[in-house]
Structure formats: structure tokens, C-alpha cells
């Protein structure tokens, strides 16, 4: 293979170092207007009167739009259609949008927002998971009992499993919000065209979601809504569902005023009003034999969904499927609930419902290891999934399980043998310790993915041998376009330098589902291969005709034409030219449908995902036991995501994800007062800076997947998910202080120490 496993330079690198890369706020259109949003001031209320008169009189205001002005349906379509673009009559969280104010410049629009007077009756609200479960206010959402979703797993007989266990114990865990903190805030520009069509440009993960959203809001058919992806400054799940809302804010005024409208959020607005990682409350019980075999698992967990369901049902389902961890266990009983509160709707964030349950599960394993007098490595060695094992949902794994390898590589990477010393033997104010966590992760959308489990690609070879590729999944910094160029070059036999990945445009490729779930490499990668194979057929025919050698004997590699390893005098470009002269079709549509999965809602069993990636994280920390401050010294992450396409970029994904995971575990905390976030900025919501970053050691464990493109699986989310429990287990190993809540801020550690 020429380009698989090669760390070629990012194809978008030059534009990103010289300032020419155009993010959405860098686009300007003639006579473009600017939108700002008037929002609900308290968590729940009934709108009695909205007085727009003062705002409308302000010079420069071009229009103010409320629910009644929406030309199509007042709906943000995600899984359910329960969220309006603009609140009508009742609003359900503080910060919910009520009116769009449009002006010649953003400052005037902002001033217009400040002049709107809302007369409202405040309604009783629910702000916490506990109050939602207890129904302190009934019926705050579209579903009965304040529960958006409930999923379960019923496997074996958990009561019998606990009876036959030598030890069993139950603990409670809490996890907090996490804000994506992509450096580029949300933004869209809607441009109306003649003949009542609309083009929307913007920062997003999922152009086809936005297309559906704009179609609903404008009433235009999908064919007349064109979405074009612009360079996206980070997303991490935060630009999965939210961009449909931003696009709605731009599109409503754009079609009514017939002018381009730019809607770019400011930082505080972005943090206060867009989706977050779901806070969770988890009750976790595990039972083991004396020898350390996991015999029974019972979990009950609740996600705080916020006021609308958005992506919550599938976030919850993914949490359910992964809640028991990467262990073989015959008796499992899990109930997963997503409950409504009058807070910002939560949505997708790298890991998608799993970091919460992984934190609980991996802390349980750490507690169990101590109770069983086993090392955390040995306990995992006994229970982790290997080829031939069955997952918690009874998926028999027949290939590509690199967990055991990753376990030992991550342990060696942190020098576990020498550093794992019981906390009782540690003294002094600053104490060091190591911790570990293991995880598995279903690649792609899984059995609940429905019609979205598909991807398309379009390839066109030009007469000079240059190649255009259009795909339906987006580059947001993770490097997918570079991976796609490598896959195209490998499959066609040209150089990646000749491949241009076009900006994603919904008019060019069929709905390829969302850019989420670590699915791009497998899904779009396979679609590219499918498209390339069709062209390759003609290229080989052409090469055969030109060279007189049989097709089967010809190889195309990196622009060269070879037989039996010998380079012929003709090149890729000669072959392309010949194909053009013969009028062979060097344009193709590729398609890929995800391998099959299965699921039974009554038992919670089935082949939930077509393949899984596996990770072991280890951490070394130093804890100041007087102040509770934690310094992370070392983080090791050994990850099996199949064949790496570009190892250098894969390492970059691992390093970045691991640091986000560290932030989630010990730093990042959104404070809320009366349902309103009070720290919506980077000086108060603290994400890791260079001063927080430890030594990070990424280790690639390559266990190929037969159906992946060149045996690749998925990587994007894996690095983040298990870092928090590796760190909190290391905190225990350093101090004997058990952390059951994240973020593990110093004050929490001191509180736990006192208990």
C-alpha cells in the first residue's frame, strides 16, 4: 500500500497557516444583513405580550421576526420534532429564542434586541434530574412523566448473578455538563436565490440535517435548499444538531427580506444557549467471584436532557449499549432514562453518552480490584472482551478486538509495574499515583441509525489526471479530507497531490447521514472505494490497451503504471488521456450501506454496532492533599481503531481528545444559578491550556477490520471517553480519596477527603 498508513501533510494545512482559510464569519455578501436573537429571561414562562415597537423604530433595523412569521413549520427536526425554532406562547428554558432581530450591522441588531419588551408569566420549572424524577412539576415536556426516553437491557438473571457473587457493591456517581468550546462559534449565512431557492453556508458537521431543517422552516422542498459547508473551526458534536437552529435564524429573515443574512453567535451566547454533554446520575452495582470474574451488573442511570429531546434518545441508547463496559458478563440489568428539565437541551459531544457511564463503570472496576486484592490490570485481563467473546448486548465478536494488546501497552506506557503502589504506603503533602480505564466503542450509528446508515461519494477524473472528490461527511479539523485524499489516491492509483476534496455541497452528493459517531473513515471511505473501483475498471482497461499487457497484470500506484513490479513507460496521465480519447466514463457515484446490525428493544440485546474500537487509558497524577489540586503528569492512550490511514494525524486526534477528556475529568465546570449558566467565558469556564498539559503518549494498536476501507475502523471520539476515570482512579491510588463525581475539582477532593 502506498498511501495507507502514511503520514502525508494535511491537504488544508497551507490555507490554515497563511490565514486564507475561510470560516463562515469570513464570508461577506452584497447587501448582507445581520441577525441577533431575543431570548427568554427565565427557565419557564408564558408569553403575555411582546412589545417590538421601540426596537422597530431604531434606525437600521430591517425586521423583527417571531414564531408567527416563520414561512414553513416552526420546527427544528432532529429525532423527534418537539423543539420550535422560536418559542410561541410558552418558553421552556432560559435563553430559548423568541425573536430574530435583523439589521444593517450586528451592533444595531444587538441594540434592537435590548429594546424588545417581554411581558411574561413565570411558570414553575424543574432544574435538576432529582426534581424531574420526583415530578415536582408535572408534564414539562412532550412525553409523559417528564421522561423523554427509557431504554433497557435484560440479559441472563442478574439477581441470581448477585447471589452467586462472592462480593458485590453499589455506588452512586454524578457527572457534570461539558461545553464543546470549539474555537469558532456557531455561524451560518443564508442567501436567497431567484426562483425561490436558498443556499445556506456555514460551520457544521451535518449538512443534510441542516438541509432538512431549512426545508422545514422555509417550506421549500429539499431540492431547493442547498447547503454548503465552510471551513469549520472545531465541532466535537456541538455542531451536529445546533447548526440547523442557526441556519433557521438566518433563513427566516433571508427568505422574507430577500437578502443574505449572517447569523454568527458570540461566545457567551454560544455557551449559554447551545447543546452540552448531558449531566448524569448513575447507580451502579457489580458482582464478582473471588477469582475476579464479573458475574452480575445492575445499572440505573439518568441523563439530564434539558427542555427538548433533540439528539437525546440516541445519546441515551449509546450510553445504554456501553454502560457495562468492555467486559464479558452473562447477567446484566440496565435501565437508562433521559429526563426533561427546564434547562438548555443537551445533545452530542464526542463520546455521545458514554463518558458518563464509562466513568461509573471504570470506577467500579477500580473499587472491585481493591476489594478482590487484584491489580486493576489483572482484574481487566480476566474480564475484557477478546475475539470469541460476546459483548454486554450479546454481540459475538469474531474479529478486530485489540483491547488486550492495548491494556498491556497502556500499562507498560505508564510504567505500571513500578508505579502502582497502594495509597496506604504514600506519605507527604504531594502524592503520586497511577490509574487505568478500559473501554469499547461502537463505530458508526449502530442499530438505531435507521436510514442514515449510508454514505455517498462522487469522483471525477479530469483529462490532465487531476481528480475531484465530493463527499457527504465534513472536515471540521479532524483531518477527514486528508484521509479521503489518501483513500482516493490509493484506490485510483494516483498521487494524493492530484486529488481535490470539494467543499461539501448537498446538491452534489446524496444524503450521507451525519458526520458523527466516528463514522467518516469507514462510511465515506468505503463509498470512495466503491466510486474509485468503477473508474479503476476503465483505467486498467485503458492501461492494458496502451501497454499491450493483460489488465490483471497491471498495477496503478502513485501515478505510475507497473506490471510484475516493473514500471512501464506510460504514466497515470497517459492512461487517463487514452481513456478520454476512448470516451470511457471516468466519473462515478460511490455508495456504501453500513454492515448489518440488530437490536431488540425488549431485551436490549443484539449486534448493536457493526464493529467496535477499543481503548485503554492510563494516567499518572500528583495530588496536593492539603488543597485538593491535581496535577496530571502523564497520560497514555493505547487505541485500536484498526488500520490507521494517517498515523501522525491519528496521534493528533488522540492527543487532543485525551486533553479534552482531562478537562472533562478535573477542570471543566459550568455553574448554574436559577437555570442560567453564570460562567459563559474562557476565563471562568476553564478548558486546558498549555500550562495544564502533561506528557501525552499516544499508542496505536492496529487490529484490522475486514469490512473497513483498508481495514480501518473509527477513531474520532475514542481518545476522550475514558480519560476521566483513569485520572480519578489515579487520584485514589495517590491519596486513597475516592472520586464519585466529575469534574473532580479541588474542593470536591477535599470534601471527599473529609468523608
Amino acid at each position, binding site marked *: 500500500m502506498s498511501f495507507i498508513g502514511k*503520514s502525508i*501533510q*494535511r491537504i*488544508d*494545512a*497551507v*490555507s*490554515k*497557516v*497563511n*490565514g*486564507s*482559510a*475561510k*470560516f463562515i*464569519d*469570513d464570508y461577506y455578501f452584497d447587501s448582507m444583513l445581520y441577525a441577533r436573537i431575543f431570548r427568554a429571561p427565565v427557565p419557564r414562562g408564558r408569553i403575555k405580550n411582546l412589545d417590538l415597537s421601540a426596537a422597530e423604530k431604531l434606525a437600521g433595523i430591517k425586521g423583527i421576526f417571531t414564531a408567527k412569521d416563520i414561512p414553513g413549520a416552526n420546527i427544528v427536526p432532529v429525532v423527534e420534532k418537539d423543539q420550535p425554532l422560536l418559542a410561541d406562547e410558552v418558553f421552556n428554558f432560559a435563553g430559548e429564542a423568541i425573536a430574530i432581530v435583523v439589521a444593517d450591522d450586528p*451592533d444595531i441588531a444587538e441594540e434592537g434586541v435590548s429594546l424588545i419588551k417581554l411581558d411574561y408569566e413565570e411558570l414553575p420549572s424543574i432544574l435538576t434530574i432529582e426534581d424531574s424524577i420526583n415530578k415536582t412539576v408535572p408534564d414539562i415536556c412532550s412525553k409523559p412523566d417528564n421522561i423523554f426516553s427509557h431504554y433497557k437491557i435484560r440479559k441472563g438473571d442478574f439477581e441470581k448473578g448477585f447471589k452467586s457473587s462472592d462480593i458485590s457493591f453499589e455506588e452512586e456517581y454524578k457527572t457534570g455538563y461539558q461545553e*464543546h*468550546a*470549539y*474555537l*469558532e*462559534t456557531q455561524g451560518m449565512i443564508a442567501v436567497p436565490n431567484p426562483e425561490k431557492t436558498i443556499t445556506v453556508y456555514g460551520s457544521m458537521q451535518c449538512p443534510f440535517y441542516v438541509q432538512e431543517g431549512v426545508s422545514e422552516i422555509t417550506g421549500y422542498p429539499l431540492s431547493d435548499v442547498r447547503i454548503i459547508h465552510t*471551513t*469549520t*473551526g*472545531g465541532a*466535537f458534536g456541538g455542531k451536529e444538531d445546533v447548526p440547523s437552529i442557526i441556519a433557521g435564524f438566518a433563513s427566516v429573515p433571508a427568505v422574507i427580506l430577500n437578502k443574505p443574512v449572517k447569523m454568527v453567535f*458570540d*461566545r457567551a451566547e454560544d455557551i449559554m444557549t447551545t447543546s452540552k454533554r448531558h449531566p448524569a446520575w448513575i447507580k451502579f452495582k457489580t458482582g464478582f467471584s473471588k477469582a475476579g470474574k464479573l458475574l452480575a451488573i445492575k445499572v440505573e442511570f439518568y441523563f439530564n436532557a434539558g427542555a427538548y429531546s433533540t439528539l437525546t434518545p440516541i445519546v441515551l441508547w449509546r450510553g445504554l449499549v456501553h454502560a457495562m463496559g468492555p467486559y464479558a458478563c452473562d447477567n446484566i440489568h440496565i435501565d437508562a432514562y433521559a429526563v426533561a428539565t427546564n434547562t438548555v437541551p443537551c445533545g452530542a459531544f464526542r463520546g455521545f453518552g458514554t463518558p458518563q457511564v464509562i466513568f461509573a463503570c471504570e470506577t467500579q472496576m477500580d473499587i472491585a480490584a481493591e476489594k478482590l486484592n487484584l491489580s486493576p490490570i489483572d482484574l481487566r485481563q480476566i474480564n475484557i472482551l477478546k475475539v470469541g467473546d460476546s459483548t454486554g448486548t450479546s454481540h459475538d465478536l469474531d474479529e478486530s478486538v485489540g483491547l488486550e494488546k492495548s491494556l498491556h501497552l497502556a500499562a507498560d506506557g505508564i510504567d505500571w509495574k513500578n508505579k502502582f503502589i497502594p495509597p496506604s504506603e504514600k506519605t507527604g503533602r504531594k502524592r503520586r499515583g497511577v490509574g487505568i480505564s478500559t473501554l469499547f466503542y461502537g463505530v458508526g450509528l449502530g442499530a438505531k441509525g435507521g436510514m442514515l446508515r449510508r454514505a455517498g461519494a462522487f469522483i471525477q477524473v479530469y483529462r490532465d489526471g487531476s481528480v475531484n472528490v465530493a463527499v457527504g461527511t465534513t472536515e*471540521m*479539523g*479532524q*483531518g477527514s479530507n486528508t484521509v479521503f485524499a489518501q483513500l482516493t489516491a490509493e484506490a485510483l492509483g494516483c498521487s494524493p497531490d492530484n486529488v481535490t476534496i470539494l467543499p461539501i455541497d448537498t446538491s452534489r452528493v446524496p444524503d450521507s447521514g451525519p458526520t458523527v459517531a466516528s463514522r467518516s473513515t469507514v462510511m465515506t471511505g468505503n463509498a470512495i472505494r466503491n466510486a474509485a473501483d468503477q473508474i479503476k475498471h476503465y483505467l486498467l482497461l485503458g492501461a492494458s490497451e496502451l501497454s499491450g499487457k493483460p489488465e490483471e497484470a497491471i498495477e496503478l500506484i502513485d501515478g505510475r503504471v507497473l506490471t510484475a513490479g516493473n514500471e512501464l513507460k506510460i504514466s497515470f496521465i497517459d492512461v487517463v488521456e487514452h481513456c478520454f480519447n476512448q470516451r470511457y466514463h471516468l466519473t462515478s457515484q460511490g455508495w456504501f450501506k453500513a454492515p448489518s446490525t440488530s437490536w431488540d428493544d425488549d431485551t436490549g440485546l443484539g449486534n448493536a454496532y457493526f464493529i467496535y474500537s477499543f481503548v485503554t487509558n492510563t494516567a499518572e497524577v500528583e495530588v496536593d492533599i492539603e488543597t485538593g489540586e491535581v496535577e496530571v503528569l502523564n497520560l497514555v492512550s493505547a487505541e485500536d481503531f484498526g488500520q490507521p490511514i494517517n498515523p*501522525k*494525524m491519528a*496521534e*493528533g486526534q488522540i*492527543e*487532543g*481528545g*485525551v*486533553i*479534552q477528556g482531562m478537562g472533562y475529568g478535573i477542570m471543566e465546570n459550568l455553574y448554574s444559578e436559577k437555570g442560567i449558566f453564570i460562567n459563559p*467565558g*474562557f*476565563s471562568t469556564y476553564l*478548558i*486546558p*491550556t*498549555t*500550562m495544564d*498539559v502533561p506528557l*501525552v503518549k499516544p499508542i496505536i494498536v492496529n487490529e484490522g477490520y475486514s469490512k473497513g476501507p483498508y481495514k480501518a475502523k473509527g477513531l474520532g471520539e475514542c481518545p476522550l471517553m475514558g480519560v476521566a476515570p483513569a485520572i480519578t482512579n489515579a487520584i485514589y491510588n495517590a491519596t486513597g480519596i475516592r472520586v464519585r463525581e466529575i469534574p473532580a475539582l479541588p474542593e470536591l477532593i477535599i470534601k471527599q477527603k473529609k468523608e
Partner: protein
Amino acid sequence: MEHTIKLKVNGISYDVRVQSKRSLLSVLRDDLGYIGVKEGCGAGECGACTIIMDGKAINSCMVLAVEADGSEILTIEGLSDGDNLHPIQKQFIEKGAIQCGFCTPGMILTTYEFLKRNPDPTEDEIKVAISGNLCRCTGYVQIIEAITAAAKEMKSNKEQ
């Protein structure tokens, strides 16, 4: 109130009419078209809008345009010599220090000013120097590697 200010940006002189309240960031982007200057927070907390003003790396969102009257400014657009990238830019590419790219211009310009002051930095000094520039993608590892390599390259270029 409106003022006419003089700016020299990447060697080009401008007279610009600006209102008192406007930030230098906004004038560079919206009036003069230097879109490589990025707004990440508008509050001096992320470093994405870093430019070099009279030799110092500053957050352009925290400076009023009128305060910059008469100053010389370098933005990311002015760092390379045509297609010939500056060693810092080259090393950011080489070491994989770029993912989404939104923090990159500010990160590179902070580095540029820092390496002028400290051409032979330790890793700890590099970390302190760019601690005001947030990156959410890379975990900073490859950025620190890139800066280390750029310092070496610039030093050896000078010695030649």
C-alpha cells in the same frame, strides 16, 4: 464619534474612518479584509485574534481601533514571503500542529513575537508563552513540537 486613523498593516498604509467604539479586530477584518485575524471570544480570553502591533503580540479584540492610530501591524497574511512560508508556518504544518485551524493564526503570531524575544526557548518557556492562546483540537502537543522545531530552524538560518 468618528475619527480618521492611520494604520500600516503588513507594510500597506491605510487611512480609515472609524467610530470610537470599534475594536481594532473589527476594523482589520470588516473594513480592511484581513480575515486571518479570528474572533474566538471577543473578550481577550482565547488569543485567536492575536496580531503584532508595534512589535508586540496583542489581542486585537481588546484594543480600540483609535488606540492603534499610527501603529504598525503585522497579521498572519503578512508573515510569509509570498508562497514562501515562514519557518514557524512550515513547522506547524510539518509537525501536525494544525487541526481545525481557527486558533492557528493567533498561535503562530504569538510564537513569532516570542521567538524574537527568546530565540532558544525551553519547553516550559514555550508553554508559558502560548498559554494565552487556546486550542481545543490538538492538546497542544504537536504545537509545542512545532515551536521547538521552528526555533531551531530559525536559529540555524541565522547562523548560516
